[in-house]
């Protein structure tokens, strides 16, 4: 039998992997920097928590609504934000994160600093789901998302995102509706972050505004950059690696943010594409020894 501690760590890492994957759609695929991704994680968590505790909706309904809600907020915020230039976008998304956290903190409806408690693991077959079952449920959904991501990458949408990432003005001159495709990436990324938030709320059983602050956004961004921005597996590898790290030893847990920061700087200096980036030591040796002839894909 898997220990309770292990399954808790596994679920946490899985949720982080989903978050990193969702940010990767915005920042990796479409090339739009976001420093406020935790806001949408929080919006999903709060929607699903409130629907469950206040409106009495079951998990199976609150989770899709949390996804939808975070996606809609993503659209409303994304449409004005994505018209601004890159550097403004970084500041704007950061601002969104602070505002959303403050709303959770200061509006009594959202539970204030105490947050919201009394959320439970979902029920099925007339009983509460066990943690290993919950893990498998999230894993199953995540695999579906990754399959969808692969399909998107091979579609005109993926191609439009790649062109926007490379050069917005040239993309526009090739018939790519730049704003629309940017908003699409932002909405998808926000919705999946909202989904992860819903899973998180029902797993932790209580949520607080601090879980969704700017620091959290940076942690998610670190995972994406560390593993390999724009690659399909990089953000997951980043989430697993940076997720396990603090569990290995207490000191690392206490200096978590410091260590993440140093790692991020080191990556930027020595492997800017991330662990699985195209030009990284790992990818190059993989190509050399395993796939001597192939280039990409």
């Amino acid at each position, binding site marked *: 039998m898997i220990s309770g501690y292990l399954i808790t760590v596994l679920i946490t890492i899985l949720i982080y992997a989903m978050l990193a994957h969702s940010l990767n759609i915005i920042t990796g695929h479409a090339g739009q920097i976001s420093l406020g991704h935790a806001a949408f994680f929080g919006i999903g968590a709060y929607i699903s928590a409130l629907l469950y505790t206040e409106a009495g909706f079951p998990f199976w309904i609150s989770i899709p609504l949390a996804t939808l809600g975070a996606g809609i907020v993503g659209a409303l915020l994304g449409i004005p934000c994505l018209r601004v230039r890159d550097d403004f976008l970084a500041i704007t998304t950061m601002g969104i994160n602070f505002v959303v956290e403050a709303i959770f903190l200061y509006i009594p409806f959202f539970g204030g600093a105490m947050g919201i408690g009394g959320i439970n693991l979902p029920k099925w077959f007339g009983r509460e789901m066990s943690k290993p079952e919950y893990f498998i449920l999230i894993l199953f959904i995540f695999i579906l998302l990754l399959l969808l991501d692969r*399909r*998107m990458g*091979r*579609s*005109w*949408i*993926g*191609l*439009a995102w*790649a*062109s926007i990432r*490379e*050069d917005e*003005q*040239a*993309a*526009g*001159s*090739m*018939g*790519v*509706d*730049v704003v629309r*495709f940017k908003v*699409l990436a932002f909405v998808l990324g926000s919705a999946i972050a909202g989904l992860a938030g819903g899973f998180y709320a029902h797993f932790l059983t209580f949520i607080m505004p601090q879980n969704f602050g700017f620091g959290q956004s940076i942690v998610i961004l670190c995972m994406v950059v560390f593993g390999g921005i724009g690659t399909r597996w990089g953000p997951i590898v980043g989430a697993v690696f940076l997720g396990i790290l603090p569990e290995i030893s207490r000191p690392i847990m206490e200096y978590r943010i410091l260590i993440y920061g140093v790692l991020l700087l080191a990556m930027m200096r020595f492997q800017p594409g991330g662990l699985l980036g195209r030009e990284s030591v790992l990818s190059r040796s993989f190509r050399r020894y395993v796939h001597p002839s192939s*280039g990409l894909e």
Partner: protein
Amino acid sequence: MLLLDVRALSKEFDGLRALDGVSFAAEGGEILGIIGPNGAGKTTLFNLISGIYPPSGGEIDFQGRSILRLKTHQISRLGIGRTFQIVRPFQNLDVETNVLVAFGHRFYPSLWKSTGPYRRPEILKEVQKLIEKTGLRPYAKQISKNLPLGFKKRLEIARALALRPHLLLLDEPSAGLRFEESVQLMDLIRQVRDQGIAVLLIEHNMQVVMDLCKRIVVLDHGSKIAEGSPEAIRSNPQVIQAYLGKEG
């Protein structure tokens, strides 16, 4: 009906008149040269036609319809392709994928159609044809940032042609090229014209312009100072003055 009809087009940047009441027209199957000293407003003119920024005044009609309020992507979908003075291929994509991006202009308007896979045999066949025609065959699978300049310029033309344009805006295609490279590029531009595509050509190399264009528009300090055949332009005193300065 004129293919492109530009009337009294103006553009101001923070009080600076980059373009001041320029009018001209272009027909299908002709190469219209646009020349003028540095800072004359040539690239600004292209950026206005392709919708990079809106004009401060004037009219632009394309196929009898005003394109003044259209965005860049809408204008390119109507069939106005362009290249850039400083080349901007999608650096980290290979040549084939660069061209594919432009082929997507038929799919991007519908979100549903955009979810379809882009590597389809019938489209790849068209891409191959274009790559062949623009002489990019040996580089098809190369990441475009590794291409020599001349081939980056060809790639930009290939991309623009993938839009199935009626009008092509070429911004200094021969700049920075060796003599033989630019001769080959001129051949390509002639072929494009022979398909019935109108070409607006910004060019500093006078030999190239005089060779390719039946008609030339001369800009200086944002205004049109002359229009006519290469012979007429060559002997126009105002043009000579703009290029060489006042005598005495």
